[in-house]
């Protein structure tokens, strides 16, 4: 039998337990609120305001009432290859570019689906390059894309979109799936006080995303319909640093990426939308740098696209009478500049017109089976690069390599540019691609290359620093 004292003790114990529980809940809530508040504060200060993804989405939403029948999706190479105005002027279409920097293929799928749902577009142009299919998805661009998409959405829709990102195959098994709850860690400004202050000031200024993007991305111009570009020109003497292999490494296409292309093609097919998969133009040296990997891997992409009923075009392999890029068309080794994009879009419009007329566009370019024909079609030196070898006895040798067609004969000249600016010819024009550097030389070796028979000072050149 329980005494009254025992009963009082039990009640007191229950009261204490209840009090402890309440205190625990309140403390936990406070901790969570503090963390969320700091997360919001950090996002405000550090998350890039005016990213190109947010420009795309805000402009896309602004065009909600307009007619859009063609969309361009893909990463920056696609974003800077297609000028919607040039396409529309030639074709009478209404194109919008939904391509964003480093856009992963599953985000291209999201963009294409959104455009199909909202505008019932009739054509999707997916611009890709080698790295679109060989590189791991960069979580930062996923987050930037998702966050920009969320900005104009209702809270439930935005939350659902972000949840979808967190549970996507690229995220769910990795730390990114939790860390992306702190988006400022993924899409942040430079972590120095002046950049942070500028970012906060831009947010508070009342500028919209587009105005902010112009400030953030110096030299970038917005031309409308989701498209913006730069005007700068590639420096071919820096080709060694500009090759995608130097920047990203060389690996085979990932099956997941090929599957994502197939998903986009399936989406388009099921909705009666024409899909054109385009390998965007780049300087020839940045195609040749892949060697035999390029045709081997690109053929896989072509097979996947065509198996799903899409049209495949490799702009780098188009016959010269269809499209032939000029040196000044490129901003760097991977991207066209604005003039280049306009020129390419005008030429590409002809190809789309041929496609619309039911012509076989496959005959307009070299095939991967006929890779040798493509190599023979290159009639100029695209770039020259060099390397320095120092043997165990200290002898330094500079060796040049030209990226050019198989039928082009190249000759080289090696000059030593001293630290005082003086120039000495180490080896005059000749077919030898290597040159021994005299012991004790200081400065840089300039390697000039030109086609045999040419009287030009050089067609291309590069500089080779010397180890001291």
């Amino acid at each position: 039998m329980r005494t009254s004292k025992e009963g009082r003790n039990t009640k007191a114990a229950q009261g204490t337990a209840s009090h402890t529980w309440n205190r625990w809940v309140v403390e936990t809530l406070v901790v969570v609120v503090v963390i969320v508040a700091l997360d919001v504060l950090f996002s405000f200060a550090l998350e890039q305001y005016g990213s190109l993804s947010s420009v795309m989405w805000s402009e896309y939403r602004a065009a909600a009432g307009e007619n859009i029948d063609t969309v361009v999706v893909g990463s920056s190479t696609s974003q800077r290859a297609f000028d919607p105005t040039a396409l529309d002027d030639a074709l009478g279409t209404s194109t919008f570019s939904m391509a964003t920097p480093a856009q992963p293929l599953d985000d291209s799928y999201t963009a294409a689906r959104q455009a199909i749902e909202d505008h019932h577009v009739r054509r999707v142009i997916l611009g890709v390059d080698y790295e679109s299919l060989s590189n791991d998805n960069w979580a930062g661009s996923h987050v930037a894309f998702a966050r920009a998409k969320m900005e104009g959405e209702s809270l439930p829709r935005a939350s659902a979109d972000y949840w979808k990102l967190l549970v996507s195959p690229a995220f769910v098994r990795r730390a990114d799936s939790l860390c992306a709850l702190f988006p400022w860690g993924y899409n942040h400004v430079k972590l120095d006080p002046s950049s942070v202050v500028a970012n906060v000031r831009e947010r508070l200024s009342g500028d919209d995303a587009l105005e902010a993007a112009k400030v953030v991305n110096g030299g970038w111009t917005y031309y409308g319909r989701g498209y913006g570009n730069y005007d700068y020109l590639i420096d071919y003497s820096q080709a060694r640093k500009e090759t995608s292999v130097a920047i990203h490494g060389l690996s085979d296409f990932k099956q997941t990426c090929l599957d994502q292309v197939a998903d986009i093609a399936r989406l388009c097919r099921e909705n009666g939308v024409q899909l054109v998969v385009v390998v965007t133009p780049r300087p020839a040296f940045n195609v040749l740098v892949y060697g035999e990997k390029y045709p081997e891997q690109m053929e896989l992409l072509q097979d996947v696209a065509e198996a799903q009923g899409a049209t495949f075009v490799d702009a780098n392999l188009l016959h010269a009478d269809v499209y032939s890029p000029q040196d000044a068309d490129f901003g760097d080794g991977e991207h066209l500049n604005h003039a280049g994009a306009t020129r390419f879009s005008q030429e590409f419009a002809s190809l789309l017109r041929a496609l619309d007329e039911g012509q076989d566009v496959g005959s307009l370019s070299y095939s991967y089976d006929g890779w040798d024909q493509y190599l023979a079609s290159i009639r100029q030196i695209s770039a020259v690069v060099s390397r320095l070898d120092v043997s165990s006895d200290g002898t330094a040798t500079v060796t040049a390599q030209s990226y050019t067609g198989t039928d082009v004969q190249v000759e080289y000249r090696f000059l030593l540019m001293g630290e005082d600016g003086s120039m000495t010819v180490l080896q005059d024009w000749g077919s030898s691609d290597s040159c021994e550097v005299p012991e004790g030389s200081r400065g840089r070796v300039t390697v000039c290359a030109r086609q045999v028979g040419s009287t030009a000072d050089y067609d291309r050149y590069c500089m080779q620093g010397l180890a001291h």
Partner: protein
Amino acid sequence: MDLLSLSFVLFLAVSLAAYYLVGRICRNAQWLVLLAASLAFYCLAGRWQTLAYMLACAAITWAAPLGLARMDAACRAERAAAPDRAARRAAKAAWARRRRAVLVASLAACFGMLAYLKYWNVLLYEVGLAASPSSLGLLLPLGVSFYTFQAASYLVDAYNGRFEPQRNPLKHLLFVCWFPQVIQGPINRYADLGPQLLEGHSAKGVPVRRSLLRFGYGALKKYAIANMLVGTIDQIFSNVTPGIPGSVVAFGILLYSAQQYGDFSGGIDMVEAASSLFGVRMAENFRRPYFSVSLADFWRRWHITLGAWMRDYVFFPFAVSRPMRALGARASRLGEHLGRTLPACVANLLVFLIVGLWHGAEPHYVAWGLYNGLVIALADLLAPAFSRANAALRVDESSRAHRALCVARTFLVVNVGWYFDRIYGFGDSLLCLRNTFTNFAPQQFHLWLMQAGVLDSTLKFMVLSAVACLLVFAVSLAQERGVDVSGRILGWNCVVRGVFYFLVIALVVVTSFLTQNVAGGFMYANF
């Protein structure tokens, strides 16, 4: 599946909900949830194709002790029926031989699987019969060494009659495949872990906040220290040339010291935390090893459960074996200390040879193991000389300064060992060791790092790792002084705690983002 991932959080949440819900209905059935979760985790995190190896290991180590128990019963019956003492002794000896044969056969089967999966391809490669160390395409099961060692300990303990063998094969399977331990240990003992897994728990007694704190601490070590440093270490040691400056080598080894501790102990913190959310406390595997005062002390604080396993199942049986006793007796003619310590020294060499081989069949691992064994053996043998020297120099062995000196000395000795562990070529290890002392060349430090591809920005971001290291050092120092750090933090004002948690999370978020291309797995996951 990374431990710090939504998939693991969801997996854990579903498992915990199922575990405590089932506990409300039928506490005796809770272990079934743990078993289901463990098998599911194995398939999700590892390769389901390798599940058969673990099941085979569990089946062998379940059946053999039951067989041994039956043999014990048969032995007792035969002895009871024996007409005289000689017959009883003969029966006992005969059954003992049979029991030993069963034990040896079972251990051979378990370790045979381990050897085949882990070493066969490497051995074929070393003798030129395989194209590469992985050309046979053998799939290494997740945590194969850990569950094999754990199952083997169960077998030997059952053989020695330490407990009644588990009759239920599924309960035994749970002990072998308990999911927090399969990634990289610790190597638990049945007497400690088995009852906890089977007894069932209620959510009330679970130290949730402490567990989450420990999980976060582990994540900090893993992401902000280990993952941040691993790339630079690879760049430094993937191209060892004769001219590599000692300053670069020493830098790389120090980074490795931090990376290895961050990776292994960080991972252990995370799995210990996950396990404790189910009310199951696993064996501790680290006790602030860089505060050790000797190499032997280090091995009592670093990978504790492997050290204890080796002590119980290799060191002691070998050190007290007949040949070792005979060696001790012979050595005692040269001095009592030598007679007492020489068998232990030889046993230590054997133990560390096995520890080296456990890490891999490559010569540099063997060298690393032998280095550790040799240093510990020499320290034991020379202990009286050291004591005499200390006495002669009037060194106060109980002073703080002496302790600090011992800690620093041990840190150096451990780091010399890492040369053989991390530099994947015995010749390169020796070269790097030589250059550390004869060609330190600090003026070449920066240039050489640049040539190895270590960017200035990478070095700049190492400040984040340094901050994390300082935090870990402060926590370790406090723990070394007996402070309950978790308790202190949980006692803070909740706003301060929220800010502190956020700053730690921020460090993990930033470093996780910076190291996205680093493999997410743990160094010891394939051991």
